[in-house]
């Protein structure tokens, strides 16, 4: 139960709250964090409504002279943010869902089936949680690039979306198996026994009986996966070309260009296009996001 923990009784009893310096410092510190986040985005929004000459000539604090939404259209079409957006949606949803299906299968067996290697397999997957993907990618890339060089027909398969999606799926496996294992372990065993008596195959028991019971856990886990893939940059930088980038990669190239062309205003419009969907999802599904995040981060 969130926030069930009691209120400090001392505060209740006091009629007139005194302003205590400690409390003031606390609020100041919290506001510093909150304001910097809110102000930064408000500022980005303001700039995204200005024209480039206006941005360069007026104070960065000045309000836009009029609400000009053309930058958004410009970023969406001309700067190709629209196509990056579609790429990101595809990559994140495919990566997250396949990873969860693959992990759920393994997590179910590790959690529910009694056989000799359970504990060993569970720990084996868990170790991967500590291995930074960034380090494994470099040798993997050389391996794939080498194959592509030697066999040009295979090169489309070795570099680009194929291996990237494979990496996206695999990168979630340690986290997902760990979290989903926890969800499966918490289920009662009667259902499974009944299914076995009725002669259901292991896969059918998993798919039709056990998986639906952990739906809420799957939703939280999917959210965490989706958000982290939506924001993923390093792998995309290595495997994708500028023309078919994901949003973070496209934004990065756009920011580099802005340094020379001073096209800051449509860059900021693009930043908003990238960020707003995430913020909306977060605002709607805050509790599930917290749940997914805290479930995965090793228990104390």
């Amino acid at each position: 139960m969130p926030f069930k923990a009691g209120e400090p009784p001392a505060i209740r009893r006091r009629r007139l709250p005194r302003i205590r310096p400690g409390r003031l410092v606390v609020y100041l510190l919290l506001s510093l964090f909150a304001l910097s986040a809110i102000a930064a985005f408000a500022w980005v929004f303001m700039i995204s409504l200005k024209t480039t000459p206006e941005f360069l000539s007026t104070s960065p604090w000045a309000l836009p002279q009029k609400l000009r939404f053309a930058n958004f259209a410009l970023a969406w079409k001309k700067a190709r943010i629209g196509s990056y957006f579609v790429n990101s949606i595809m990559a994140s949803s495919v990566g997250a869902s396949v990873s969860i299906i693959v992990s759920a299968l393994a997590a179910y067996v590790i959690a529910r089936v009694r056989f000799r290697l359970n504990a060993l397999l569970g720990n084996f997957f868990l170790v991967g949680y500590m291995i930074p993907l960034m380090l494994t990618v470099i040798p993997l890339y050389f391996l794939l690039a080498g194959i592509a060089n030697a066999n040009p027909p295979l090169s489309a398969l070795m570099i680009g979306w194929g291996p990237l999606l494979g990496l996206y799926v695999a990168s979630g496996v340690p986290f997902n198996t760990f979290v989903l294992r926890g969800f499966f372990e918490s289920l009662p065993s009667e259902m499974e026994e009944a299914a076995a008596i009725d002669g259901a195959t292991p896969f059918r028991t998993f798919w039709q009986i056990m998986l639906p019971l952990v739906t809420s856990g799957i939703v939280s886990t999917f959210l965490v996966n989706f958000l982290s893939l939506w924001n993923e940059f390093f792998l995309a930088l290595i495997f994708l070309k500028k023309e078919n980038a994901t949003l973070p990669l496209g934004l990065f190239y756009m920011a580099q260009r802005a340094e020379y062309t001073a096209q800051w205003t449509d860059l900021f419009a693009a930043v908003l296009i990238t960020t707003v969907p995430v913020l909306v999802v977060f605002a709607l599904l805050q509790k599930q996001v917290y749940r997914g995040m805290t479930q995965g981060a090793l228990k104390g």
Partner: protein
Amino acid sequence: MRRGIRSRAEETRAYWAMILPAFILYMLVLAFPIILSIVLSLSNYNGGQLFGGAQHWKITGFQQYERLVNDPQFWLALKNNIYIVIASIFGQLPLGFIFAYLIYRRIVKFGDFWQGVIYMPAIISTIVLGIMWSVIFSPTGLIADVLNKAYANSFSQSLAQIFHQAGGFTVNDDIVKKILGVSDPKALTVFANPAADLKTMLLTYQPGQLTVMSSDLTNLLARKWTPDFLAKQDLAMLPIMFVVVWCWTGMYLILFLANMQKIDPQLLEAARIDGAGEGQVMGWIVLPLLSGVIVNSAILCIAGSLNSFALIWAMTQGGPARVTELLSIYMYTNAFVGAPNFPLANAIAMSIVIFSVVLIVATKLVEKRYGGKE
């Protein structure tokens, strides 16, 4: 009972089939490349096909590691990484803990709001955050604007004072000297000969044009904020450390809060009734109860800091002049930029692994020595 219809072996096979996809992916993408990375870091591999075909690379021993320890850039990158680790452990964790406690105990109002806002940066693309902060810190950004206004203000005030003391608008050597005294030395480089040129300039104004002159001089000579410190070693890491703390404090806030909510509230109430202050409850009850979570968070923190790439890549790309390079950026540039050095890149990757293992073991040792109050 129809159980006997399926044989035991059939069932086992089905279970293995369910584990297999995850297992294969895991081996291919995580386990195998780590081993490959170790091998390559000890080799002279320099591009081309790794296996099959004519073998054109062989194991050559530790020469890449030797090169690494002799490269000053490696040590700079390592030092910068340590800064990030320090900012994470001593910034994110304590702040996250205190904020979580404040919200948990409802010492502050609107807990949900603070939690959401502080956590928000953690779910936004680090590239977005990097771009945003680099613009805010840039010479045309928000910070520059605030500081430049302040500098201009104080400059025009000193100007007014100088002319007030002189009893109105007059031009003489003494006044020129005083104005030069309050000007930004860097701005004075626009003049070939500051004293004489400034005097000539002042003489072009009519006595009634004091305000015009004052604003012209302010534009020309007042100090402007140029983020020079961003080009200096160590100092250049400060804004990055700030952003790192700002980004991920929320992550630890929700972690700690979730675990605090598992504590039996009666325990804390009892302590409060016995007269313990909030600070004492936090330090003597909640902190020890969460020590396991804190150690795990510290490990997450270390692993995260050593792998941070996107944020710094978007903010500085390791620049200017490579002073903000981290191990990850050092590795990336060696693997993919300019004339790549593949074995060196793998050696850097291994050094990151070694470094993180050392730090994690150290954290565990600290826990063993000082923790264990549970």
